[in-house]
């Protein structure tokens, strides 16, 4: 018997009030907020954060594969999952693959994992863009989810996979070329009519595949880009409870949506609850689960949603690449060295420091020779810092340095249990930084030069 062993979600800190967009364009006001990835986040860093939360929760789970899905990959050709793999410090023997491109890849990866073998860590992530004032810009959100799929022999299943169905149908619904910043869609009436015939067929097939009667499904989880289609399906399938789709608090997270909603469903599920996940994207995919005992997530989705902070529409447009602003008159960063990045990988990706063998003094970055003569040369031990918490000893605000989001806030951070580093603080406004503030490391994209993304660590406030 296979199913889902653990889940975790990652919602970026920033929220855009949709009313701000309406105000800017003097258009009728719209409700709610959307989540916004910061200027230093991308689908890889968010997927990592979700996967890290999942793995923090329990040490005895050992994924044999990491599958990353997104419709907004930082790299083409180069495997994005490798970056996440390295940041998670997974063994080199653990597979890492991208299931990317189409929005359907993420549910496809989940279904494939459920019918495969071994423990498979799915990291699904998206950053959703749209042209200013448009529906996609307003209704979308950024976020990630991680699901660990495995056998019941691996551990207690959070959700047992009962069966499902697929219907594949080629038609022009929503599309985007790799060069485009925003997607386009066909007229909604055509799309609604096409999906409605597919969904009922898929529903019957899924129930029959899972050996269930129609009225036995407790919760329907609907994923897909077309709101009107979802509304229609919710009415026609006649399931009592349709899970809230987070449209008012997060927005539609595209490739991450189905996994994120599944996390939401499982964080709140009763034992034995039957959950049907129905993804309406270039066809229909239905997966039916029976919930086990609810898990207690380290950082539940609801908490993350509640702990957002505002971003202005101006910054949102900048971060999304829709508003190009004058950079400072400083040289832009140069590309990193591939060879140096490999040599320093444990530090760069894993944030692993070194600890003096005798004094215990922690060195960030790691060092072969201690600043304390009491330690022996080349005898330092590895000291992982990524899951530690520190406090701000002192800080400054730099308006001069090159940054995609000036000013840069820099703090000298002392970690609990030892270790000091001067490091950038992200997800915070300059006026909110205080000495003594608790911060934790977060994996971010620093800049891109010559098409190479430079990933490394910053800290962000513990909230």
């Amino acid at each position, binding site marked *: 018997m296979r199913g889902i062993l653990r889940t975790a979600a990652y919602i970026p800190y920033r929220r855009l009030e949709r009313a701000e967009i309406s105000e800017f364009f003097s258009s009728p006001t719209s409700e709610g907020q959307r989540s916004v990835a910061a200027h230093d986040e991308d689908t890889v860093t968010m997927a990592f954060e979700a996967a890290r939360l999942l793995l923090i929760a329990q040490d005895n789970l050992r994924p044999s594969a990491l599958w990353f899905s997104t419709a907004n990959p930082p790299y083409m050709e180069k495997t994005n999952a490798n970056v996440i793999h390295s940041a998670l410090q997974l063994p080199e023997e653990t597979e890492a693959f991208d299931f990317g491109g189409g929005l359907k890849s993420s549910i496809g990866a989940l279904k494939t994992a459920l019918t495969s073998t071994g423990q498979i860590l799915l990291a699904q992530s998206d950053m959703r863009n749209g042209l200013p004032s448009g529906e996609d810009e307003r209704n979308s959100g950024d976020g990630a989810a991680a699901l660990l799929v495995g056998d019941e022999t691996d551990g207690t299943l959070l959700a047992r996979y009962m069966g499902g169905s697929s219907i594949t149908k080629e038609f022009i619904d929503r599309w985007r070329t790799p060069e485009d910043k925003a997607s386009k869609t066909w007229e909604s009436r055509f799309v609604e009519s096409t999906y409605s015939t597919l969904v009922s067929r898929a529903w019957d097939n899924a129930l029959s595949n899972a050996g269930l009667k129609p009225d036995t499904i407790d919760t329907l989880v609907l994923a897909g880009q077309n709101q009107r289609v979802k509304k229609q399906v919710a009415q026609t399938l006649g399931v009592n409870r349709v899970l809230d789709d987070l449209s008012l608090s997060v927005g539609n997270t595209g490739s991450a949506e189905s996994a994120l909603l599944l996390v939401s469903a499982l964080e709140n599920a009763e034992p034995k609850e039957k959950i049907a996940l129905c993804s309406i994207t270039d066809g229909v995919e239905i997966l039916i689960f029976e919930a086990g005992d609810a898990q207690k997530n380290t950082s539940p989705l609801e908490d993350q949603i509640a702990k957002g902070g505002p971003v202005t529409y101006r910054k949102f447009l900048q971060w999304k690449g829709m508003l190009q602003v004058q950079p400072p008159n400083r040289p832009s960063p140069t590309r990193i060295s591939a060879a140096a990045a490999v040599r320093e990988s444990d530090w760069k990706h894993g944030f692993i420091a070194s600890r003096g063998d005798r004094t215990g003094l922690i060195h960030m970055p790691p060092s072969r020779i201690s600043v304390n003569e009491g330690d022996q040369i080349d005898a330092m031990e590895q000291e992982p810092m990524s899951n530690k918490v520190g406090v701000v000893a002192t800080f400054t605000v730099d*308006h001069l340095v090159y940054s995609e989001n000036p000013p840069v806030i820099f703090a000298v951070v002392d970690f609990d249990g030892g270790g000091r580093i001067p490091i*950038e603080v992200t997800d915070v406004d300059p006026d909110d930084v205080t000495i003594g503030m608790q911060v934790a490391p977060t994996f971010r994209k620093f800049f891109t030069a010559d098409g190479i993304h430079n990933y490394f660590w910053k800290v962000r406030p513990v909230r």
Partner: protein
Amino acid sequence: MASKGIKDKVAIISIGCTPFREHWDKSKDDLVIDATTQTLASANLTTEDIDAYWLGTAQSGMSGLTLSMPMRLEGKPVTRVENYCATGSEAIRQACYAVASGAYDVAMAVGVEKVKDSGYQGLNAFPMPTAGTNRTLTAAAMYSLILPAYAEKYGVDEEKLRMVVAKIAEKNHYNGAKNPLAQFRREISAEQICNMAAVAGRLSVFDCAGVADGAAAAIVVPAEKAYDYTEKPLFVKALSFVSGNGSGLIDPEYDYTTFPECEAAAKDAYQQAGIADPKDVLAMAEVHDCFTPTELILMEDLGFSERGEAWNDVLEGNFGLEGNLPVNTDGGLKSFGHPVGASGIRMHYECWLQLRNEAPEERSIPRTERNLGLVHNLGGYPGEMVSFVSILGTEIG
């Protein structure tokens, strides 16, 4: 400290310095030629008379060719040196040791930096291939960490301390306004500086050194031959250098109110020169005022003020032209800007003028029995720094 020093073994017999400017009309070669020929001419020497050269530049050229080609030197050894913002002083230091060793009788140090051809603001280091994990903060931001740390440690009101460091800029610009070689020749009040927008922490643009092109040069000979060249040589009493181990960046005990590398370099220099209390014997000092808080901290690290008292000494005017120990009488990096390879030699040039009573009347230090000057030149940031100190005097002994 294990250094023995070379007290009174060598002397400087000529120094020259170009104006520090945005020299749009001069190349690096022009600046090198101007400083070198001027320094040779004032000692009535030619390039042939110099046995060996040290050329300091951070990033305006590589190898000795940076000097030997524009100067068309024939068969002479030229060594290019680099040591961050202390590059100019490093060139002097190496020239002094070469002469002290007996290897050469006449050595010349030349420092140059052509900064303004880059098209960017500020000083920007050449990018080296890295893993992308290096800190990206500006120097201004790193030095801005000093103010809150100092205020907290010594219980000084932060607003007051902000005014104190603005007073340092005011003093240096007051001095620089009287110096035709300085880049900025306008006085500015501490109040004006305090009212400017912050660019890094509490620091405004006027808390930072300027950016200029420039060159300077010095000629070194054995002490016993000094009077063959000039009636008023400057004898080298001490040369010290400390390159830090970076512990400040990782040591939770480091509190950003001192630069241990500078304190150690000063201690070494005083020991070499046989100085017990610098406040009592130095006639003047040129120190590395790259940012106003740097000069504040240096007053303590160099032993000019007691710990926690520099802010008070600044307010008392102790380091002004008429003060007990005038500091940066030429206007400092604040007024001159900072052509990295040249700045250290420029600092020695001011000692040359002041100790020989050749500084213009309006900015000359009080004439006293004191005949020692100190040069302090650093590179890097709080926590990871190189520091140079030299002491020069007009008499042997």
